């Protein structure tokens, strides 16, 4: 009964989405305020019904209702309740329902928090989001009904959740990632609304900025969790594989980063207007493209969903409608002659331009590398694969190019600045950065040029930021009042840039100084790695709720002092018989020690073991967390709340606001 209720709620949600997509848009066209005023209510209703539907699916999972097909194939009565819950989105149908739920959540949030938005704009924005909702809900209902029953032939027990997904990180990774993915639909909706309205002024940038920042922050967190999960769960010690599915989430992030910065220029200076609109369309299109790639089976990937050409075709048609439609609208409505606002070369605008170009080129190269196998296959030129070396070779120089400009960014003034001022401001930070780059890597045993470069660039970013911060608090009576005077949006930028620096340092240090040993070890053996003694104490059988495992117990010591006990496992999950490596990690701020089991060798209890020493690997994720916190912080800025009232007055938007 409950699954049928969920299905019914989903159908009602679909109907509401259809009304939301049509009626307020019609109202906006005919200037019918009653039709437009329906939009917020419809958005709330959409959330309620999709929410009910989602709750019903969760109930089916938690109650082990194996007559429901997705439950039977993705859950098991032995599965811990926490994973029964996360199994809801561990499959194609359920994750799509989660997607729809999050979309309605964002739609509802726009309806609730944009009370001061002109009704005309609000109606258009919500209508666009409703239309996107129609696409996803019809996709669910037509090709991937999560409530389909297995009747007759209800199995006695389920197939179990893929053991790789039985992990705390994976409980929150998909929701966060989807919050980011789907969040770009808000920026998209604002951009489309602005195009529909035909007036591409700075006001839409101001409205969509906080939404974009939040979506970007969620996406950063989601990607970070995905990388962290891959690191400790896949048993390889790798944290980024340039796998098509990873790229699918990374491309919207890259485009979103460009969008954030471009929105800043549009809001403050009324610059790059049509460009920003285009970026908003790009960011959301890449989210949709990611969905297409993950769910259609066009690309091989470790964690793609089960594939079905019918689904692929549906998403492709949907993608073509959304992207094709919005780009056509863009071509018709974007002003042919761009803004008349001018800026000098030595200014913050041109630095933002650099950011945009670098991030856009990065997005395109990742997109190209991801689609290259598909293109070659489609042209009949053979089955190629593009490996991580390609992406690294392209990506590393791009990011290195970005860093010098990034250090200048916060200090630079809008419109016109002078190189002389930059020199006087930043000569000291530059010098200190170089000194850091030359000396800090010496702390490690061997000096590495790449690490030196990364430290120099990161130090340059951080020192540039600190210098600017100091300028801002210098005039205040005390340090406290000075710091308090700084706006949340500045703190957001500060934290995000700091996070980027930490991330770069972590990535380079861990890639360069990483030590990995694959070797045969018997109980009693000791192996020394980077000064740490890995002592293999014993091998023991262990039993978990739904698996049995061999556990290798390690004691790790340095200079005779015990540092950590690690117990990696080789699990065999009972329902599927799938074998899984469960690595164990001793994580500290400056280094991780990582032990994973391979397979047994010979008959005498020896195992293939993988030992890793990974310095500063955590900095990467800490950096990503800082970036996300930065993104969230900007929303607290009073500016966004206050700025809404005057925009109802036409013409006020164009006025350039000072820095």
């Amino acid at each position, binding site marked *: 009964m409950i699954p049928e209720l969920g299905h019914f709620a989903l159908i009602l949600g679909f109907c509401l989405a259809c009304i939301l997509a049509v009626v307020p848009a019609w109202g906006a066209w005919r200037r019918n305020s009653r039709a437009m005023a329906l939009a917020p209510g419809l958005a709330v209703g959409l959330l309620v019904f999709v929410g009910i539907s989602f709750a019903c699916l969760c109930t089916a999972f938690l109650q082990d209702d194996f007559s429901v097909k997705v439950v039977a*194939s993705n859950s098991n009565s*032995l599965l811990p309740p926490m994973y029964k819950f996360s199994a809801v989105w561990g499959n194609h149908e359920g994750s799509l329902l989660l997607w729809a739920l999050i979309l309605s959540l964002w739609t509802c949030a726009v309806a609730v928090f944009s009370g001061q938005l002109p009704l005309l704009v609000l109606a258009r924005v919500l209508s666009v989001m409703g239309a996107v909702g129609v696409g996803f809900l019809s996709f669910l209902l037509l090709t991937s009904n999560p409530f389909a029953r297995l009747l007759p032939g209800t*199995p*006695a*027990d389920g*197939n179990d959740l*893929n053991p790789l997904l039985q992990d705390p990180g994976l409980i929150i990774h998909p929701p966060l990632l989807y919050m980011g993915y789907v969040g770009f639909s808000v920026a998209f909706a604002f951009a489309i609304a602005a195009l529909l309205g035909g007036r591409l002024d700075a006001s839409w940038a101001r409205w969509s900025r906080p939404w974009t920042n939040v979506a970007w922050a969620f996406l950063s967190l989601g990607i970070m969790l995905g990388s962290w999960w891959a690191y400790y769960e896949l*048993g390889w010690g790798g944290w980024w594989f340039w796998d098509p599915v990873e790229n699918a989430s990374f491309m919207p992030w890259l485009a979103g980063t460009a969008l954030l910065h471009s929105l800043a220029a549009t809001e403050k200076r009324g610059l790059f207007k049509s460009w920003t609109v285009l970026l908003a369309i790009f960011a959301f299109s890449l989210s949709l493209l990611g969905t297409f790639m993950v769910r259609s089976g066009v690309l*091989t990937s*470790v964690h793609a969903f*089960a594939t079905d050409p019918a689904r692929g075709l549906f998403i492709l048609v949907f993608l073509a409608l959304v992207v094709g439609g919005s780009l056509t609208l863009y071509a018709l409505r974007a002003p042919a002659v761009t803004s*008349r606002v*001018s800026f000098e*070369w030595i200014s913050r605008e041109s630095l933002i*331009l650099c950011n945009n*170009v670098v991030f856009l*080129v990065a997005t*395109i*190269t990742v997109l*190209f*590398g991801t689609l*290259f196998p598909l293109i070659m296959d489609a042209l009949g030129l*053979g*089955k*190629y*694969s*593009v*490996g991580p*070396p*390609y*992406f690294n*070779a*392209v990506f590393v*120089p*791009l990011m290195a190019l970005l860093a010098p400009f990034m250090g200048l960014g916060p200090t630079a003034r809008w419109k016109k600045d002078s190189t002389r001022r930059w020199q006087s401001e930043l000569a000291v930070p530059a010098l200190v950065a170089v000194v850091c780059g030359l000396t800090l890597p010496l702390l490690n045993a061997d000096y590495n040029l790449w690490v030196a470069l990364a430290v120099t660039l990161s130090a340059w970013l951080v020192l540039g930021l600190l210098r600017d911060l100091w300028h801002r608090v210098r005039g205040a009576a005390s340090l406290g009042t000075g710091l308090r005077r700084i706006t949340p949006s500045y703190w957001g930028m500060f934290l995000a840039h700091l996070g980027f620096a930490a991330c770069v340092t972590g990535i380079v240090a861990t890639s360069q100084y990483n030590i990995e040993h*694959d*070797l*045969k070890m018997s109980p009693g053996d000791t192996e020394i790695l980077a000064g740490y003694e890995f002592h293999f104490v014993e091998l023991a059988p262990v039993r978990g709720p*739904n698996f*049995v495992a061999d556990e290798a117990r390690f004691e790790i010591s340095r200079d005779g002092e015990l540092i950590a006990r690690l117990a990696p496992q080789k699990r*065999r*999950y*009972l*329902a*599927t*018989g*799938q*074998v*899984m*490596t469960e690595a164990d990690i001793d994580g500290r701020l400056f280094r991780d020690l990582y032990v*994973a089991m*391979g*397979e047994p*060798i*010979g008959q005498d209890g020896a195992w*293939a073991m*993988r030992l890793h020493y990974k310095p500063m690997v955590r900095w990467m994720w800490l950096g990503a967390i800082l970036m996300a916190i930065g993104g969230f912080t900007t929303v607290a800025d009073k500016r966004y709340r206050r700025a809404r009232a005057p925009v109802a007055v036409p013409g006020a938007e164009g006025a350039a606001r000072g820095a």
Partner: protein
Amino acid sequence: MHPVRKQRLYLVLFVVLFSSAAIGLVMYALSGNINLFFPPAEVAQGKAPVGQPIRVGGMVVDGSVQRSTDSLVVRFELTDYQATVPVSYEGILPDLFGEGQGAVASGVLDEQGVLRASEVLAKHDENYMPPEVADALEQSGYDHKGNAK
């Protein structure tokens, strides 16, 4: 020239230069880092280049996996039921690797026709199970296998 025009000219120049540098970089990176996929039959026919990185995919032949007892060297054969390719790999195999399962090995073909793999990937289909799984099913209390054992 009008200053706005001039600025646009510089802008276009900058974008063009930067894009061509990026395209050059992409082409350079692509030339060294892509590898072509060959089914074992084509390797047997000598279509695969020796000494260049390639990928070979197929099923791991039943009974072909030989592990060394004192190192991490593993040898196995990949087949597409038309031809088989011997593969040698040193390191830890992925969890999903197994005899009778699909696998893709990437590496370099040597003079003897052995693929020296640097990476082995295994793909597993949930709807689809090899006989080995039977053991684990027994332990899980699946009685719908008809109490065979």
